[in-house]
């Protein structure tokens, strides 16, 4: 059956590819401009941090419906996925999930109660691109940017169009959505709506090798997002966006301790404005104001621990940012950030947190002319941030980065960073109410980390180099993080567990990536091969590997595209991940492959049609990312889309 399906799809692909050559469809270039690393648009080779972009092309050509799924397949981060109905959280360079800052258009969305973001709960429909900056970055973004920063950039209205899509897949997974945008001289707007649901009743084998069906992993998610951009004048513009998402999910629980009646209801409402004004050529300022309300209700009526908790969070963010000398070689950015946060939780009560922050950063760049060493430029990126929280002490976070680049078309860059970052104690840590077993500790300090990295990046795009390669990129970064005052729950004299700033850890590793593009006729990236590898030694004070941190992880992506049609296969390997502190138990290594075939082509005048067929976990590998949370075997998904573009 599977073989027959594959043959049919291959024939379809081949016939479409022949036909597609006759059509003149625009080629979407790979995007390598990143904003999050310096707050300014910069190419990946012109920044000091090791950074990655999940481009619009990758997002659009995926049948994934949420952020967790697409990050998992990228292998840029280490994802802990609890499977359908469960959480997905990110770890970077051996950090914990609380030590990864997640931003939505530059504004933090980490949950202050738990400190983490459930990536499975962020729909992809409103996302344009995802930027990932590795390494400590509290000097720019404040708390939780210890392992790195994930910045989710939402879509912008760039043309007048209407697009609708729907997908279906294994285990009764359905998704549909519509996006419409309109642009005029000064005002443009975009609205997206999407809804997805899945039963996720996939089969798995439990630890006694019994065939089971995962129950209560169903989900239903709806999402609305809108954005308006107003170019008030040549010197001022205003952007406003708002979103609403609501999800109802079952919570299947771990194998053996199933929670067949548990459910989660998640609601997020947010509104955001961004005003940018450039009164003078050497001075810009912008104001960002964001309001965000979240609500999570978790219900489990069954013994032994029946639960009905609701956690509501209301956040008001304001940021005033000043940019001096923006078009020079010494641009300065400084800002003030204010945050007011109120949590109303049936578990923790009503808690408030106020944050005041001041930050400043600069890029000092020196460019060189012709010289025997082909030295092109040297840049230094100093940054500092001071954070004050109403309920704990944070203080100063400094960082300095450097970049030395050689050559022009064929470039070599050496880069490095050193800085201090911290992770805020979350409200569970601080305010857990005293019960029979545990009590929070309001005297906690943040976890701190000294981060350092150094590496190189080679980009060869000159045709004289291996004529059959149009673009060659090779990068490698050695990093070391020293974590101090790690928050650890430990039993006190009365036997109650309480969090303390106790433990230390280090993570040392080497990240390497390789990207090759091979042209064919007029298509510069007819074949794309991406390969990345992470070597990680994340050790506690007793030199034991931290749990769920693989020593080796490897990812690959091979994409062949012929203008409007493409075929892609990608995969990831994770080595052994220990599940006990003592490294006595572990999850076995796994390698998993995904495959996609897709096309998008103009079918009539301005009407475009798209089709994606995806097989996840191609070889039906049994694997787990978190112990006792099985993940689905082979899954298929088909996505179709139609788009009508205006003039």
């Amino acid at each position: 059956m599977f073989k027959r399906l594959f043959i049919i799809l291959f024939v379809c692909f081949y016939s479409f590819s022949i036909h597609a050559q006759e059509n003149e469809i625009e080629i979407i270039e790979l995007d390598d401009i990143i904003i999050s690393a310096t707050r300014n648009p910069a190419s990946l080779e012109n920044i000091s941090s090791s950074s990655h972009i999940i481009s619009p092309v990758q997002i659009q050509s995926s049948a994934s419906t949420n952020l967790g799924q697409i990050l998992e397949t990228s292998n840029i981060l280490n994802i802990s996925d609890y499977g359908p109905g469960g959480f997905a959280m990110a770890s970077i360079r051996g950090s914990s999930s609380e030590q990864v800052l997640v931003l939505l258009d530059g504004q933090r969305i980490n949950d202050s109660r738990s400190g983490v973001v459930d990536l499975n709960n962020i729909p992809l429909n409103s996302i344009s691109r995802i930027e990932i900056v590795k390494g400590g970055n509290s000097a720019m973004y404040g708390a939780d940017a210890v392992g790195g920063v994930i910045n989710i950039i939402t879509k912008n209205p760039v043309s007048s169009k209407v697009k609708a899509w729907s997908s279906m897949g294994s285990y009764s997974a359905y998704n549909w959505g519509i996006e419409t945008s309109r642009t005029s001289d000064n005002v443009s707007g975009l609205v997206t709506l999407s809804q997805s649901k899945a039963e996720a009743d996939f089969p798995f084998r439990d630890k006694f090798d019994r065939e089971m069906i995962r129950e209560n992993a169903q989900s239903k998610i709806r999402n609305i997002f809108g954005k308006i951009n107003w170019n008030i004048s040549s010197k001022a513009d205003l952007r406003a966006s708002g979103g609403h998402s609501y999800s109802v999910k079952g919570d299947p629980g771990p194998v053996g301790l199933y929670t067949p009646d548990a459910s989660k209801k998640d609601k997020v409402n947010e509104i955001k404005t961004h005003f940018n004004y450039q009164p003078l050529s050497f001075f810009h300022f912008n104001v960002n104001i964001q309001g965000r309300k979240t609500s999570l209700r978790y219900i489990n009526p069954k013994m032994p621990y029946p639960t009905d908790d609701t956690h509501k969070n209301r956040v008001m963010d304001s940021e005033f940012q000043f940019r001096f000398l923006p078009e020079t070689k010494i641009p300065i950015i400084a800002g003030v950030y204010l945050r007011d946060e109120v949590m109303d939780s049936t578990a923790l009560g009503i808690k408030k947190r106020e944050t005041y922050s001041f930050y400043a950063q600069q890029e000092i760049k020196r460019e060189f002319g012709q010289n025997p060493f082909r030295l092109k430029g040297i840049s230094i990126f100093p940054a500092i941030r001071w954070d004050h929280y109403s309920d704990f002490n944070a203080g100063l976070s400094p960082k300095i980065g450097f970049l030395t680049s050689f050559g022009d078309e064929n470039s070599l860059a050496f880069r490095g960073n050193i800085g201090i970052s911290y992770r805020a104690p979350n409200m569970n840590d601080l305010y857990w109410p005293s019960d029979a077993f545990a009590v929070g500790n309001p005297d906690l300090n943040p976890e701190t980390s000294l981060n350092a990295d150094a590496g190189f990046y080679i980009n060869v795009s000159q045709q004289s180099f291996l004529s059959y390669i149009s673009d060659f990129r090779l990068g490698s970064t050695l990093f070391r993080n020293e974590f101090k005052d790690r928050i650890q729950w430990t039993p006190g004299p009365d036997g109650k567990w309480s969090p303390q700033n106790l433990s230390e850890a280090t993570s040392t590793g080497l990240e390497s990536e390789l990207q090759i593009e091979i042209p064919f006729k007029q298509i510069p990236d007819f074949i794309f091969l991406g390969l990345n590898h992470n070597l990680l030694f994340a050790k506690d004070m007793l030199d034991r590997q931290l749990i769920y941190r693989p020593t080796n992880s490897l990812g690959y992506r091979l994409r062949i595209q012929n203008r409007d049609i493409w075929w892609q296969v990608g995969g990831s390997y994770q080595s052994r991940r220990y599940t006990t502190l003592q490294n006595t138990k572990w999850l076995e290594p796994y390698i998993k492959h995904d495959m996609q075939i897709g096309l998008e082509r103009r079918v009539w005048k301005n009407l475009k049609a798209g089709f994606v067929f995806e097989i996840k976990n191609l070889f039906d590998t049994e694997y787990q990312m978190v112990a006792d949370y099985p993940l689905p075997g082979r899954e298929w998904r088909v996505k179709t889309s139609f788009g009508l573009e205006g003039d």
Partner: protein
Amino acid sequence: MQRVSNKLLAILLSLMLSVMLLGCGEDDEEDEEIIPEVSKAAYIINGLAETMSVFDIETNEMQNDVVTVGKWPNDIKIKENKAYVVNTGDNNVQVFELDGLTQVGIIDTGEFSSPEKIAFAGNKAYISCNTNNTTVAANLSSYQVTKTIDVGVTPWGVAAAGDKVYVCNSNAVFDLDTSAMSYGDGSVTVIDTSSDSVVKDIPVGINATEIVVSGSVVVVQCTGNYADILGQIYVIDSTSDSVTHTIDLNTTPYGLAISPDGNAYVTAFEGLIEVDLLSGSIGAPMADFEGGSGLAFDDDGNGYICVPDWMGSGNDQLLIMDASGNLAGTYAPGGGAGYVDIRE
């Protein structure tokens, strides 16, 4: 220049690929487990590491993590030449042959059962299951559950005396209104092992968790509420199945065991407390043994006390108390060493 660049690229590329290839093979090496050959030993369950350690009583040698056990192990008992490990998180009991420590069977106590403690009567094991308020009887030849017996609320400790099995019902329940545990009056359910039916419920104190048998006396430890209500010992006469007297412990106790001389010993944060079951007097906490959890005695009267380090910092201890009550040795078991039993 171009040639040099190509060479440099080739070298870097080779290095990168070499690291990848070497790294991806690192898990092929399996750690070889050396199973100790012992005739008299303490078998320790390490709750954090989820492993078993073996302490050779004759040579005073500790071998850690000799075999992995299931999720959230909460009890170990030795019977004849087998060790039975109760895994609460896996809803099962693993059975290991002591010579070679090979797993020879699994008693599946069923979904949502959360088995906690085990005791033996004849060719049957009785396992308390604290999620579904039952105790299961299992055949020790087939490792199959033969009967599920309804007992009290949140059963915990279990012990056998003659043809009866005694199950502590802690009555510890999660209160949805306060989002906290509440502890009602405990009880002891008496099961007739010939019919595997309940014959009596004996009311005892708050949060009855541990139970041991000494001759015709059944000793029940009521832990209290971990706050203002402190622990008590209830002494039950197994012939009449009635409480004869109670003993205040003045602390929150954890483990309970009977020494060969018939006294009870209770582990607590302050130290090990000796309880004279006849007179009802308690000794001062022996500070050498503070922070203990599970404990067991050998036939010579030596006590083996587990002191777990729940932080996972590797400071777990097995303390050995000689028959005179002195600290005879300190050894390092695996992470979260919580429970111990002795092979004589």
